[in-house]
């Protein structure tokens, strides 16, 4: 489990830091609200080290039950909520975060993804900052030396080589999105909006963690409950909704796991207020009508994305289902999602295939 990486790193760093007495570093609040965003990620003071491996107090790592596939990249996520403010719980969508909130996400690859804690190279750190007039997205691109990340509002391409989990050598040009491309996914009724941090996806047990916490306090707790203890979330009801972890066969039914996958990977566009609403496909967790998921739904504007098949999902026939065909393509005119990947999500494809094959 990826979480253990954090815990191990944190322990090492806490022990090291404890040896030197100094004022604890804090987040640069002025940088977050600055009219012109800082050119360097380090200016925000989210991390104690130049390499951004170790967060300062108040910057809380978090994880999701089922994450968005991004060519298999490692993702390190952190939440910063300004002191004295709280996110407001919401059972259905992304929490209502206060002004000054920052969602921090670093994309990285290990040289050999079979050993994900070794030789980890950071590519970019994306910030979603909640301003008074809405969210803004700021991508910071890491240098080769891994010593600084610089703002790149026009996006970037970074050549990356790594060995994937199957041992195959992969070369790709990692695409850092420009500001317009950010809106390709993070768009709800025209407003830039976070995707991941909803109750159902944050509702998981994790190792409690945080600078200042004693080692003895490390134990499995509910992540949302932990946020209420830290004071950054107002409440975490015991009956909060939860999506399963898509690849854990012991977690929920096959349909629940498949729909958790679609919810996170597709529903940010395919929802009634998202960029793909004109397709008539609604892949949200809250949508319970199978035809809205694409079951026996005919294509509208798929073009050659239809591959000659009649339905988005034809029960019992993954080999004739447009949804699967588009997941298995890397052709820009065919593939789904349209952006954010260059490789095929083999695990996701296998999950969808199994689900459609068993459908009747």
């Amino acid at each position, binding site marked *: 489990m990826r979480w253990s990486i954090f815990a191990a790193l944190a322990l090492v760093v806490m022990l090291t830091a404890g040896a030197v007495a100094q004022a604890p570093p804090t987040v640069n609040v002025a940088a977050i609200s600055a009219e012109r965003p800082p050119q360097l990620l380090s200016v925000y003071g989210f991390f104690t080290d130049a390499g951004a491996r170790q967060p300062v107090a108040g910057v809380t790592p978090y994880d999701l039950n089922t994450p968005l596939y991004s060519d298999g990249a490692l993702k390190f996520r952190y939440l910063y909520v300004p002191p004295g403010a709280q996110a407001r719980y919401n059972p259905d969508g992304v929490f209502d975060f206060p002004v000054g909130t920052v969602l921090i996400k670093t994309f990285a690859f290990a040289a050999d993804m079979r050993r994900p804690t070794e030789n980890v190279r950071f590519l970019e750190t994306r910030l979603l900052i909640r301003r008074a007039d809405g969210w803004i997205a700021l991508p910071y691109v890491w240098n080769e030396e891994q010593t600084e990340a610089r703002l790149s509002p026009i996006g970037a391409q970074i050549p990356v080589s790594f060995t994937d989990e199957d041992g195959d050598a992969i070369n790709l040009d990692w695409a850092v999105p420009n500001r317009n491309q950010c809106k390709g996914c993070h768009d709800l009724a025209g407003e830039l909006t976070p995707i991941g941090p909803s109750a159902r996806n944050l509702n998981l047990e994790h190792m409690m963690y945080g600078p200042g916490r004693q080692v003895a306090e490390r134990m499995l707790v509910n992540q949302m409950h932990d946020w209420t203890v830290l004071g950054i979330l107002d409440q975490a009801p015991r009956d909060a909704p939860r999506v399963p972890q898509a690849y854990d066969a012991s977690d929920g039914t096959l349909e629940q796991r498949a729909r958790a996958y679609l919810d996170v990977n597709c529903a940010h566009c395919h929802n009634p207020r998202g960029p793909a609403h004109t397709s008539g496909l609604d892949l949200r967790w809250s949508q319970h009508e199978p*035809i809205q998921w694409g079951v026996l739904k005919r294509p509208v504007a798929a*073009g050659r994305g239809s591959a000659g098949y009649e339905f988005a999902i034809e029960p019992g026939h993954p080999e004739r289902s447009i949804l699967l065909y588009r997941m298995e393509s890397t052709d820009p005119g065919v*593939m789904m999602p349209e952006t954010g990947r260059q490789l095929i999500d083999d695990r996701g494809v296998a999950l969808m295939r199994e689900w459609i094959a068993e459908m009747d």
Partner: protein
Amino acid sequence: MLSFDGQRRGAEGLLITSDNVTLRGFGVENARGDAIKARDCNGIHIREVRVEWTRGPNPDNGAYGLYPVNCDNVLIERSIARGASDAGIYVGQSRNIIVRENTAEFNVAGIEIENSFNADVFRNTATRNTGGILVFDLPGLPQKGGHNVRVFENRIVNNDTPNFAPAGNIVAGVPTGTGVLIMANRNVHVFDNDIADNGTVNVLISAYRDSFEDRDYNPIARDIVIRDNRFGNTGFAPAGDLAALSQLGVALPDVLWDGATMFSVGGTPRTENVRIVVRDNRSTRTGASSFLSLGMPVAGSPLTEAAPDPTPPPLLDIAEPEQVRIRN
């Protein structure tokens, strides 16, 4: 000119999501997906823009050339669309639309107005497509119930490109050599056009023929007026399902109607009061234009159930939609 040869990412050439945008005087070639898409805009004006797939008709070309969807106040004029594997100029789920003085050629559908309200399509040339001008309504979409479309003063001639749409798409069912195809819309007026040399049929009026589960959808074409058009040769190379009809000895007319007035949704049958008016058209072949109903009252009936009837429908008065005015 913007070339997308070698495009590696992105589902379209250009994507517009802002209000009050004018595109003018450039070209987009060989986009991997759609050439220019405008989504959720109020006020999108496209003037003197060329979108093209330069290798000509090919199923691997992008689907749409000029593609506003869910927009208000759409103006497309003096533009050119060539080679789209679905529609050259496609306006979907939009409101208040003018498409004028454009050329659409070598596409599957030259110009297509789909699930849209209030459109004027005039003084365009649609030639060498599979089908010239299509007015469609499809089930299962956020906006449906397409209505109030005027198609006038267009040249819709010599649409003869064999259908090259990927199977599964609705336009893959358009017979090669269709001039105008009206499917499942209300209040569509086709007048003062030159419609000629379309090998299957000059004007086809049809219900949506596939099964559907959308209870709010009406698959019947109704309140259709075809008047004062100048028809040339047609029916000389019938294609698709209609070829079979021709082989049975049924001569294809200028205006062909499937005769659908009934459909069922969720097991409940419904009958529509369908008004089709065909009047004052001229034909170079026959003088007065010819008309045929296939006499298939239930939407989507197989052609084997056709009971062709050449009796022209009664001349009723159907109010024409008002002229579209772009606001903003």
